[in-house]
């Protein structure tokens, strides 16, 4: 690799108030109005996303909807259209990939980009001029392109490291671009409150406050040895972060998911095991289909249950070999569920996560190879039929029990909330 003196140029692109903004794009009459995605006021759910109009009135993410309604009664409450969000997310990521192949999606609405090596390219494309502030120009260009092509407001943080790009992005929200020039990290961070540093949550911040440390510059002044005495091994990382030092790279390979999750909150809290199992089957089915769509094999499955009092339990188990078949995972899911669901308390949410993705080659079996191949063909047919006629055209396994209780559209059962984390 050639040694290059040029400092890295990292972007963090973050879509402002993602779900709410997508709703405002899809329904232009909502523009300028407070929009809250998460559920109808009567739903007992929490705010998943609030538009900046709502945020200005004090509505925060994860606030119960009823409370949001109290402080912002004229807001438009929506249950959300998660397929649309996933589509917007995909389009945004694709657009980013036009600028650089090194795009690492962090969530649906957030991605790191490494454009270090793209300077020449941008120059020939006329995206940037010859000056040293070229990353800022490129970020601005990206931001304008997203607005023009997708009508999407984003905030871009630009810096020589992921850490500073992230902090710069938070600093510039909403609808902004912030560029921290290489070498100016320390003065940029110095006046900021300590909680902007990743790894400093409310509790650590409180601990630091007890030592009269409030701003990043306060932390920089503490000798590393003293910091280590109080914070142990974490001190080194903390000290480096406070100085804006972070050598982690943008890893586009991580574009491959590390896990596939499907979860949903029930309309009302459930106590019926069968109904929960039926939903778990459906969620597992969706996750497995995603797995096959991505051409992956997984080994580990996690079942999550959130009780009415928000106590959340999850447990995992692994298959002996990698698989992408629903019926390999189902026995584990149902066993895990009986281990996880132990309290006599209503359940508000269940979820399934597949993880520990496997090799490109699959270890073949001695006794069940034919059966395996037959099942693979079966699932391929099922996926094919669903791709053509919509997910709902087939209902399989225990999810059949949902037919009586849940409405369907072509995308499958209509769930109150869906989570597509990857």
């Amino acid at each position: 690799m050639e040694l290059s003196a040029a400092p890295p140029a990292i972007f963090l692109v973050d879509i402002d108030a993602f779900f709410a903004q997508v709703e405002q794009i899809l329904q232009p009459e909502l523009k300028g109005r407070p929009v809250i995605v998460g559920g109808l006021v009567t739903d007992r759910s929490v705010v998943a996303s609030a538009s900046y109009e709502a945020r200005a009135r004090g509505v925060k993410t994860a606030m119960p909807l009823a409370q949001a309604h109290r402080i912002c009664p004229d807001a438009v409450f929506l249950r959300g259209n998660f397929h649309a969000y996933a589509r917007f997310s995909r389009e945004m990521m694709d657009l980013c990939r036009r600028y650089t192949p090194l795009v690492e999606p962090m969530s649906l609405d957030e991605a790191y980009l490494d454009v270090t090596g793209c300077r020449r390219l941008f120059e020939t494309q006329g995206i940037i001029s010859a000056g040293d502030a070229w990353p800022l120009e490129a970020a601005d260009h990206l931001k304008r392109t997203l607005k023009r092509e997708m009508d999407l407001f984003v905030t871009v943080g630009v810096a020589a490291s992921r850490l500073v790009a992230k902090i710069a992005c938070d600093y510039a929200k909403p609808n902004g671009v912030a560029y921290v020039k290489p070498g100016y990290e320390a003065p940029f961070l110095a006046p900021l409150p300590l909680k902007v540093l990743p790894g400093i949550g409310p509790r650590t911040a409180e601990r630091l406050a007890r030592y009269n440390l409030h701003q990043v510059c306060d932390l920089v002044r503490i000798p590393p040895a003293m910091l280590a005495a109080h914070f142990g091994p974490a001190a080194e990382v903390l000290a480096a972060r406070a100085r804006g030092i972070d050598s982690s790279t943008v890893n586009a390979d991580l574009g491959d998911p590390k896990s596939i999750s499907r979860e949903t909150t029930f309309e009302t809290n459930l106590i019926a095991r069968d109904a929960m199992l039926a939903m778990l089957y459906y969620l597992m089915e969706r996750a497995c289909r995603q797995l096959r769509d991505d051409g992956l094999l997984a080994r580990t499955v996690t079942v999550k249950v959130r009780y009415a009092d928000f106590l959340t339990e999850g447990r995992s188990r692994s298959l002996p070999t990698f698989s992408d078949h629903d019926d390999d995972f189902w026995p584990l899911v149902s066993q895990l569920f009986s281990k996880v669901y132990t309290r006599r308390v209503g359940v508000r949410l269940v979820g399934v996560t597949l993880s520990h993705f496997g090799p490109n080659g699959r270890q073949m079996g001695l006794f069940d190879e034919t059966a395996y191949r037959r099942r693979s063909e079966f699932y391929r047919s099922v996926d094919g039929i669903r791709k053509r006629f919509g997910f709902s055209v087939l209902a399989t396994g225990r999810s059949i029990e949902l037919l009586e209780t849940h409405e369907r559209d072509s995308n499958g059962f209509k769930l109150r909330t869906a989570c597509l984390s990857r």
Partner: protein
Amino acid sequence: MKVVCDRATLTRGVQIASGVVAPKSPKPALGCIKFESRPGRVTLLATDLEVGIRVELDKMDVQQPGDSLIPADRLHGILRELEADTITLSSTNQETEIVAPGSRFKVLGDDPNDFPMVPEFPAPAEAPAGKKKEKNGAEEAKPAEPVVEGIFSAGADDLLGLIKRTLFATAKENTRYALNGVLWEVAGNSLTLVATDGRRLSLARGKCKNGPKDTASAIVPSKAMLLIERCLTDGVEAEGQVRILIREKDILLEMPPVDGARRIVYSRLVDGHFPKYEDVIPKDFDKKATLSTAAFAAAVRKAALLTNEESRGVSLKFSEQELVVTSRTPEMGEAEVRITVEYAGEPMEVGFNPVYLLDAVKVIDSEQFVFNLKGPNKPGVITEGKLFTHVVMPVSIV
């Protein structure tokens, strides 16, 4: 009970017996080793209700016969720390006092009557347990011909070889119960052991004496197999004979006496159907590679350095006179190792889990072995003469 013991002999016996003890059993008696002290002989018993062992001890001076239960882990720990050559064990009620020069322990045990029965060979076998004390002596006299019907015997070293070639291939997970054991098939003078975890299968053929005319088969759990292996590697003479009795629900093995003391392993059999293993051993091959055992193992080990659990496979590319072993893992890198091979057939490439290949090659004693192949995504069969056959399924190249 009061016994003056040779510490080394006792420690060795306790070590073997401890391997059976159920460490966290709800029945406290099962966490103990039972001492049965009779005039002239002490027998240690341990069981987890599935597997059991009786270890006879010599060099014991039984001053007062009786039974007692002593917690295995505490006894083992104490014996490890003591240096004296002889120690004295004396029990009253459920307490055992262990006395050595300068040390005294009082260990609380359990009621000997609570200890389950550890099955023995049926009575007639008792008589000819011919004790011939001759340490490191040349030929150990065989016990007289067994009287009980169904008892057959196998050479200690032969049996150890069969176990070594199969036990590693048993399933480690509990998905299919029958795969957590080793299948024994006895007929006439042949004893065959088979083990598989569903992705590879190991078959080892050996000889025995006085086997039944009709094939008798049994699935012996892995834990019992490990115990047998331990007994056979613990001072047993290679030429000694192991007496074996397979019954409907259990198996009994009597190891060749060590210094005149017998060890008997008991195990319940796995209740289940072993898969039809003959069906998965392919017979029609058009490609055959003859490889140096050491060179092949070294090549696979080298290529495996750049694999992980996620990437798994190493690829074997066979062509005339050369085998190229390669691996490639996205975040790690790649490796390529070439060795010479005697190969007959069309050039081909096939992927395997390197761990499986190494496990199989490790148990081959000969300098060379044969790797029979059909093609990519088809099983490979490693053979060492007629005695060892190992089928290994490939990693499919998607």
